[in-house]
């Protein structure tokens, strides 16, 4: 029983570590995407609500570009 608990704990730790590693990896990919020249070429608004607010206040339409960071 004790051995089984230890195994379960070890498995949980491994899975937990893997989950964290995966999340970090996704964060890093996002950072890499935001560091690309196209993202720095102009002042993109990356906050959706802020983009709507600016469009309303400035009487402008929104040019929206949807891309992803987790795959090329």
């Amino acid at each position: 029983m004790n051995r089984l608990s230890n195994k379960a704990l070890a498995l949980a730790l491994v899975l937990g570590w893997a989950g964290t590693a995966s999340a970090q990896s996704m964060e890093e990919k996002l950072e890499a995407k935001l560091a690309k020249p196209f993202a720095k070429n102009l002042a993109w608004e990356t906050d959706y609500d802020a983009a709507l607010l600016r469009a309303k206040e400035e009487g402008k339409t929104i040019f929206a570009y949807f891309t992803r960071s987790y795959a090329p």
Partner: protein
Amino acid sequence: MEGGALLSDEFKTFAQDKVMYLNITTKIEGRKHDNMLGDKGGRGFPYLCAMSSKGDVIAKLSGSRDTAGFTKMMGSADDYVALEKKAASGDAVAKIDFALLRAVLGMLSLEQLTAELGDTQLSPAQTKKLAALKTDLIFDEAVNRLGAEGRSPESRKALLDLSLKLYNAGTHPTGSRERRYWSGILNYAKENQNAQMAMDVVRVFEPMVAGNARGEEWLAGIKAEIAGWSEEPEEPEEEPEEEVDEDSSIEESCE
């Protein structure tokens, strides 16, 4: 695009009088607005559209993925905003046109559009537009059902039946639906060796693949296949009757 069009100086100039919104899907759990692509009508990456300050998609990219294409899309967005203002001012014609435009953009279902138009008298141009729109929306519904039902045999048959009905009526879906619709018609034509139907598809695809070597090659293959159907089937060669030399047979029998 990220290494070209979005880096150009003309794109920088283009961006000056717009709010430039960048949405990056990251798959990071719990991240706000991380899965917005589908909500805004996108089916794959990259996706570009124009939005109003309410977040409504008011134009989609239909041209090239460069500043010229982006400018065309934002021009359509400006047309939307102008029409919305005109409709809000009480212009009867603009009200109808605005309802039709919102249906085209997917903001109104066919049912909602019908309810909004009510018994309003439409101009010939608006009637024509409404008929085309109805065809598109009915086709969209069949395609959506296909997706929702996991491409079940029933939903596939329903889409094919609808496509054939539209084809026979001469009312074809437009825009982004065209490829799917005509591909379905082509498959049916090939299965049934219907050369006339297949040639109709070829005529639609010809301008679409012009200048695209792989597309042109594919279409040439289709044409060759169609030509094969119209050829007269070869008649089986009749076995020549065996000539009997009566004299020799008599000789043989006498030996």
